[in-house]
């Protein structure tokens, strides 16, 4: 019971948090909290098998699926706070509260009777006991769910599948395209210039220097440029100067060329 009283508030708070979290990722994490807590409650209630399943399947697989989809859809897509449907939020809260109130009132009133406990049922272990029932009495339902799962998987594939609208480009196609670009726009034919090479290490964040001393934009990744982590020429110049002033020091420090 202790576990319950600790976890119950956590779960309710986490669940309420899902209502208010603006970012979907946060909601997912809060859901994970609820699920893990539930798993603990399962084990408290003599359901170790479902505890495992809850953790592995639910939290581990299903929730991860949510996160994957979130990634695909955009991590930072967040709800706007403005409600578009008139009265939806108000009524949702009113009816939801009425529902919650009556439901809680109702179930609280039900006397479930003395709790029998699962000690007898779980005598030979929970998992064997479950499998015993699952593969006898519920075997048809079980088979049906397997069919359901396969169908669902196929369905998801069909839904998520994207038709290729253009034929796949071969290497020859790409070469031809490149020649055409060169002919039409004079686009550079060869490979892009490599980044600048600095004596001490290969640096992708260092642009190559053109003969006139300016940096070549083409030689660095555009992503790095956008992040602003590319070393500019003046910075580089300071570095170079430093090296030139005390090269011996450097070497001696290394102690490799004595």
């Amino acid at each position: 019971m202790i576990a319950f009283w600790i976890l119950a508030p956590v779960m309710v708070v986490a669940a309420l948090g899902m209502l208010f979290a603006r970012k979907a990722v946060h909601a997912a994490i809060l859901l994970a909290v609820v699920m893990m807590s539930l798993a603990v409650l399962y084990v408290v209630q003599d359901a170790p098998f479902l505890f495992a399943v809850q953790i592995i399947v639910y939290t581990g697989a299903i929730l991860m699926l949510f996160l994957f989809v979130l990634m695909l859809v955009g991590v930072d897509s967040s709800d706007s706070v403005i409600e578009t449907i008139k009265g939806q939020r108000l009524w949702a809260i009113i009816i939801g509260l009425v529902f919650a109130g009556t439901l809680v009132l109702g179930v609280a009133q039900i006397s479930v009777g003395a709790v029998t406990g699962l000690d007898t049922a779980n005598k030979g272990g929970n998992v064997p006991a479950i499998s015993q029932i699952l593969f006898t009495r519920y075997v048809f339902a079980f088979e049906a769910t397997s069919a359901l799962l396969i169908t669902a998987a196929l369905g998801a594939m069909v839904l998520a599948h994207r038709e290729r609208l253009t034929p796949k480009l071969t290497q020859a196609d790409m070469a031809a395209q490149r020649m055409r670009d060169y002919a039409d726009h004079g686009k550079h034919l060869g490979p892009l210039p490599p980044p600048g090479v600095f004596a001490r290490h290969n640096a992708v964040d260092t642009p190559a220097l053109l003969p006139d001393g300016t940096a070549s934009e083409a030689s660095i990744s555009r992503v790095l440029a956008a992040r602003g982590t590319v070393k500019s020429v003046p910075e580089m110049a300071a570095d170079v100067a430093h090296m030139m002033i005390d090269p011996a020091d450097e070497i001696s420090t290394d102690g490799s060329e004595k």
Partner: protein
Amino acid sequence: MSATPFIVLSAILFSIGSIGVLVRRNAIVMFMCVELMLNASNLALITFSRSSGTLDGQIAAFFVMVVAAAEVVVGLAIIMTIFRTRRSASVDDASLLKY
């Protein structure tokens, strides 16, 4: 260990989940709220299983999980498709099927 607190908790979680479905517009979050409702019902099932002393409730919860898994797979695939075509995950945008 009485069963009532578990059931009440289950009811509360279920209600929160249902309100979530109603107020959230992001399809993925809505889906999560549905999952919350399913989980709440699982809790109730497992509690009933314990109080009745049979494992059928647990089996039912197990089936709920399986079905939930299938549902999530298909549901998310649908969300993906919608997102791909409409560039939006809001359920309010998919309201062409009306009148």
